Structure formats: structure tokens, C-alpha cells
């Protein structure tokens, strides 16, 4: 671990000052009893008419003074374009858009009665971020230096990647092998570098024990996230959640396939206790099937409502804090209202697991006019256990084993879990000798 002082968070390039003794192994998430994705970061991309507000959060748990990030940005950034956001905003957005578990209880087939209950678990990790210090140049121009909230921020431009590398090294950063080439590519693309470290004094003054997300607003036709620096020398694949808030519709990647996660299926009831594991296994399985070359769509919804709601839609104020700049005064965001009409904010949640080999290029996005809603939704259907007897009930009971089998098979197929293990957990007997198991002639003269 000591070796990998440079840990790349996502598209961000997290650099630890060389003086840092111990580093962190990645980003951890544990929500309730659900330990999910490591090395994950969350990014909110608010975009409309080339105007972009980027909010970056990663769940850094180490010593704040050991943390720094370098983010390539397309334009010069003024002091007023940088802001520090409240981490709760991202947590709320995460909860709102998380894949959800829905629970239903079968009605008594003899009477028509419905009961429905929802159970949710949040699936994404949460995050914060860190930063460090900077200074002088050699072929590198320090275009600006700001202190914003608990962060010291430097905007750099460079002519040569060696110059930039030297600057970073002289300023106490350790650069991974291979980063120089990537830096050069960004320099030639005319990108600036946004370098942030934590100002410990400010942090103490402000009294935050965690690192709040950094926000940058800029205007550029480039609708992309630079992920390449983060993949240099990365210790295994990384995880990123991108929440795009747009006006028109769903966002997708144009240079990678964007795939919808499997959704809407009935799965065995035991998953309720291990929804986190389920979701993680399912995601891993889908990544495997796509040969780790796709970006996954987890949620696409009009921010005006949700159905079912894991968390309320974000308020107008929260959206504004995240950078949504096109909401007119007084227009507001409506309260959650199933079936509500189109709103002015459409949220797309993308989840990508990536490394340099499978994602050689930065992510490039486009906003489509697709306003079709999509959510990761998994259904638990509890069997009716009443003792009443009627023809409908008999038929219902006869259908149950088949239904459980299907649930087990569905679960096995989407998670890659072993079918016998699933059956064991479901307490159902191993594959019953169903008629298909018999030879066709055995079925003719059976009994």
C-alpha cells in the first residue's frame, strides 16, 4: 500500500504528496449493513447549453493533508466559478436515484385484497474529497490561486508535460509512471489543470470532519469527463457514478455503449436481507457480460416525481445548490407526485466500472431528448400463506413452486450466483423432476 501513494479516484487524479506515509486503499462505502463499491466516486454533471457545473465527491477516508486532486478542465476557472457543496446534496441524489427493492404481498386469491409495501436500500457510495497545496513554475503557469472553503486551489496551464510533471513533483506530489503522456495529451487539447488540496487551517476553522464536494462551473462545448489520469497505474478497476442533471432528457455516452441494467424482475424474498450483495453481484455480472466496456444506466427520471420513491425528489433549493441554473424564479419543483408531468430537470444516473485497458478514452456524453423513465427496480413477491380453500387458492398453490423456480433462475441469471445455493437459501428442494425431465414416451404412459 505504501507504494501506491497515488490513488486515482475517478476521472479525478488523486495525488498524494510524497511525504505521505500511509495511504488509503480506495474508497469504501458502507451504508447500513450494505458494504458496496470500493474506489468509487460520484460526480454530478449539470449541463445545459454548454454551461456545465461539475460537482465531484469521493469517499476519501485518510488524513486530509495527504489528499490532492488534479482535474483537467477545459477552460480557465475564476474564483467565483468554484464552490464547495454540502455533501448531503449528493447523498440525497444518490438515495433518490438508487436501485430499489419493492416488496409485495400476494393477496388472498379467494378474496381480492391488495397490500403493498416498499422497501428500499440505497446502493451507491457516498463521498467527500480532499486537496493540498501548490506553487512556483517551470514552463508551468500558475494562472490563479484561490482558497475556497477548506480547499486551496490552483489553476495551472502548461506548455510541456515535463514542466507540469516537474512542477507537481517539486511541489511534493508523486506522479505515477505513464501519467506524463496523459498530461501531455490534455495539454495539447488545451486543457487547464485544477489542482486542489485541503487547507487544514481553514478546515479546522470551518469544523468539517469530512471533505465536502468541490464544484466547478464552466462553459464549454466539451461534454466529457476526463478519466484517463485516474486509470494510470490504478490498482484495479474503479467505480464511478455520474448523475447528469439536464433539461431535455437522458444522457448517454457517445463513445461507449450505455446499457440499461436488468430491471423489473421478481426475485426470491431472501434478497431483502442481502440487497447490497445482490446489487453488487448483479452489477459485476452485467459488467462481465459486457466485457467491462459499457456504461450502465441505473436511473433516468424526471426530477419532478418518482414512483416508488426511495427518497423525495430534490427540492428546488437543493437543485440550485448542485448548479441547476435554469429554474425560473417561483417555478419550483413539484412535490413527489406519481404520474406528474414533465419537469425541467431530468436526472440520469450512470454507473461505470472502468480501467485503462477497457476505457482508453475519456467519457464523452450527449444529451438525448429521451424522457422515458427508467429505474433499477427489483420485486419481492411474498406468497399468500392463508389456509382458506377455494378453487382459486388451489390453483394459486399449485403455481407457487413454479414461480419460485423462476425467481431462483432469474436471480442466478442476473447475478451469476449458483442456482443450488439460491435454492438452498430459498428452502426449496433441488430441481424437481418436472415433466420436462422425462423422456417424451415416459410421459405418454406415465402411471
Amino acid at each position: 500500500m505504501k507504494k501506491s501513494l497515488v490513488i486515482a479516484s475517478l476521472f479525478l487524479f488523486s495525488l498524494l504528496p510524497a511525504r505521505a506515509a500511509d495511504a488509503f486503499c480506495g474508497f469504501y462505502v458502507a451504508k447500513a449493513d450494505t458494504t458496496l463499491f470500493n474506489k468509487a466516486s460520484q460526480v454530478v454533471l449539470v449541463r445545459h447549453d454548454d454551461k456545465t457545473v461539475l460537482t465531484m465527491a469521493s469517499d476519501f477516508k485518510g488524513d486530509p493533508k495527504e489528499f490532492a486532486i488534479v482535474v483537467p478542465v477545459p477552460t480557465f476557472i475564476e474564483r467565483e466559478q468554484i464552490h464547495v457543496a454540502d455533501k448531503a446534496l449528493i447523498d440525497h441524489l444518490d438515495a433518490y436515484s438508487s436501485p430499489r427493492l419493492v416488496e409485495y404481498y400476494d393477496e388472498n386469491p379467494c378474496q381480492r385484497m391488495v397490500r403493498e409495501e416498499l422497501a428500499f436500500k440505497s446502493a451507491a457510495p457516498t463521498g467527500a474529497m480532499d486537496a493540498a497545496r501548490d506553487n512556483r513554475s517551470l514552463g508551468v503557469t500558475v494562472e490563479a490561486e484561490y482558497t475556497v472553503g477548506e480547499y486551496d486551489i490552483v489553476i495551472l496551464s502548461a506548455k510541456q508535460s515535463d514542466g507540469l510533471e516537474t512542477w507537481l513533483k517539486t511541489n511534493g506530489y508523486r506522479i505515477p509512471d505513464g501519467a506524463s503522456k496523459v498530461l501531455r495529451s490534455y495539454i495539447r487539447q488545451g486543457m487547464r489543470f485544477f489542482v486542489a488540496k485541503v487547507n487544514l487551517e481553514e478546515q479546522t476553522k470551518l469544523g468539517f470532519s469530512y471533505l465536502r464536494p468541490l464544484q466547478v462551473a464552466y462553459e464549454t462545448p466539451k461534454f466529457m469527463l476526463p478519466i484517463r489520469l485516474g486509470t494510470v497505474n490504478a490498482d484495479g478497476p474503479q467505480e464511478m457514478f455520474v448523475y447528469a442533471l439536464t433539461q431535455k432528457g437522458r444522457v448517454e455516452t457517445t463513445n461507449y455503449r450505455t446499457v440499461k441494467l436488468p430491471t423489473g424482475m421478481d426475485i426470491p424474498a431472501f434478497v431483502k436481507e442481502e440487497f447490497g450483495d445482490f446489487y453488487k453481484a448483479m452489477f459485476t455480472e452485467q459488467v462481465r457480460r459486457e466485457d467491462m466496456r459499457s456504461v450502465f444506466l441505473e436511473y433516468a427520471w424526471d426530477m419532478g416525481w418518482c414512483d416508488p420513491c426511495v427518497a423525495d425528489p430534490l427540492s428546488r433549493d437543493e437543485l440550485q445548490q448542485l448548479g441547476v441554473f435554469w429554474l425560473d424564479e417561483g417555478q419550483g419543483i413539484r412535490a413527489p407526485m406519481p404520474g406528474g408531468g414533465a419537469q425541467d430537470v431530468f436526472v440520469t444516473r450512470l454507473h461505470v466500472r472502468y480501467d485503462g485497458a477497457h476505457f482508453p478514452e475519456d467519457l464523452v456524453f450527449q444529451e438525448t431528448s429521451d424522457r422515458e423513465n427508467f429505474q433499477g427496480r427489483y420485486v419481492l413477491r411474498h406468497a399468500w400463506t392463508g389456509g382458506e380453500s377455494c378453487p382459486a387458492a388451489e390453483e394459486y398453490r399449485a403455481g407457487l413452486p413454479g414461480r419460485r423456480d423462476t425467481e431462483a433462475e432469474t436471480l442466478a441469471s442476473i447475478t451469476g450466483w449458483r442456482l443450488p445455493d439460491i435454492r438452498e437459501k430459498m428452502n426449496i428442494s433441488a430441481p424437481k423432476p418436472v415433466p420436462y425431465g422425462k423422456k417424451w414416451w415416459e410421459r405418454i404412459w406415465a402411471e
Partner: protein
Amino acid sequence: MQASRWNMRTATRAIQDPRHYQIATLSLLLAYGLLFLDFDMDAARATLILATALSTQALCSRISGLPRFDPKSAFISGLSLCLLLRTNSPEIALAAAAAAVASKFIFRWHGKHIFNPTNFGLVVAIGLTGEAWVSPGQWGSAAFFAFLMACIGGLVIRRAARSDVTYAFVSAYVAILAARALWLGDPIWIPVHQLQNGAFLLFAFFMISDPKTTPDSRPGRILFAILVALGAGFVQFGLFRTNGLLWSLALFALGVPLIDRILPGGRYHWNRTGFSPRPLNDGASNEKEFGHRKPLPV
């Protein structure tokens, strides 16, 4: 005897007509996309687009007094739209298909139509409505390589039939991507990844190669292909916009009459019927061999 000669002739024509191969390739690709690639498209929408393209072709043929309704070109346009055009609105899909086919009859210059129909349909739908889009990333690498093979196969089958545009365009576009990567110091995987795109193949092998919209002379076609590649590169890497290929082709298609004037070549005639098995030596006129009354457009 008479009948068997006729059958032979029909069969030869069917094999020689590249549109049969194109229809087969695009249909398979569409089926694969619908079944395995999670295309934002369903059978009903595909049927709507195809039916609209075909009926527009029938209607326009009748209005413009063409003696025969030939569904093949319109079918190819329809299939290409199914593969590329995405919209939530059936009306826009319908309008795009109708505009695509009708553009062949409306925007004409010296017996040639100006725009490739699919290109026109897409540009109109995206540019005018703002409610349509193309998802260039929606192709898995398996589909890409299968489609690549099919496209190359198509070239082999077509022999010389205006493939020079495709060759010139692919070479120019690859050169642009490679030069950019070289200049940026990017690894080779980046341009390779940028090329692994089904929409690019569809464009190079089915759209820009449309013999009725490309310049008449070979030098003209090569110039045209290079201009389209440069334009596409500029849109993508200079303006940072998507669909560079489509915008560039639509723009430079307007310049084809000028290119034809500066670099004239053998004019392509639709009204010749009958198949004559002459060797295909001149890219400018070889579609005559197939005796189409309609262009070979997508």
C-alpha cells in the same frame, strides 16, 4: 428456353445488384440490434419507418411519373434509419422516413439527387425537431466486427461500384484520427476505439458511397470523401459536437454540383434498363449495369 434465359438474367441481376446484399446485411444487423443490443427501437417502430419509406417511394414514383416502383432503395433507407434514428415520437420517425425518401425526388440537380436520403432524414430530424438523436455508442464490439466483415464482403461483391468513395473516406478519416493521436501522444488504442463504431461503418459503407449523390468523376469523389472526413473531424474535435459525419456529409453534398463542374465525369443514367454484363471498369458509370431506375441510395 426463353424462360430459362430470362431466369438466368434475373438471377444474375439479383446477384449483381448490391442492394440485395445491403438489404440482407442491414436486416440482420437490425435484428441483432433489436434482440441483443438493447436498441431503443422496437418491431412496431421499425415497421412504421419501413412502411413510411416504402409508401413515400411509391407515392413519389407515381407523382414523378416513374414507370416502375422499385422498393429496394427506399427499403435500405428505412433500414438505415431504423439502425440510426432514435426518437420518442413516432411522428418524428415517420416524418424522417418520409423526408428521407422524398428528398430524392425534391432536391435534384442535373438528374442527380443532392442528399443521401438517410443522411437527409437524420439531419432534418435532429436539426429541426431537437427531439431525435443518434446513439453512436450503442454497438458492441462483437456487432462491430461482424458488421465490418459484412461491409468488406459487400465491397468485394460490389467490386468497383463506387467503392472508391468508401476507400478514400475511410483512409482520410483514419488518417485524421491517427494524426490527432500522434500529435497528442495518445496510445493507438484511442483511435482504434474511436473507429469501433457501427455508425461509422454504416456511414462509410452505405451512406457516403451512395452513387447517386457522389461526384461523377473519380478525382471528384476522392476530393469529396476527403472533404467529408475533414468536416467530420472538425465537428468532432474542433466544435466538440456529436454526429460530425452526418453534418459534414449533408454540408458537402451541397457542394457536389460544384465538384462535378470542376471535375466532370461520366454522368450516371437512371433511365437505362436491362442488364449488360460489361466489365465494371469505370466507377462513374458502373451502376448502369444494374439498370436501376432508382438510385442506389441508402
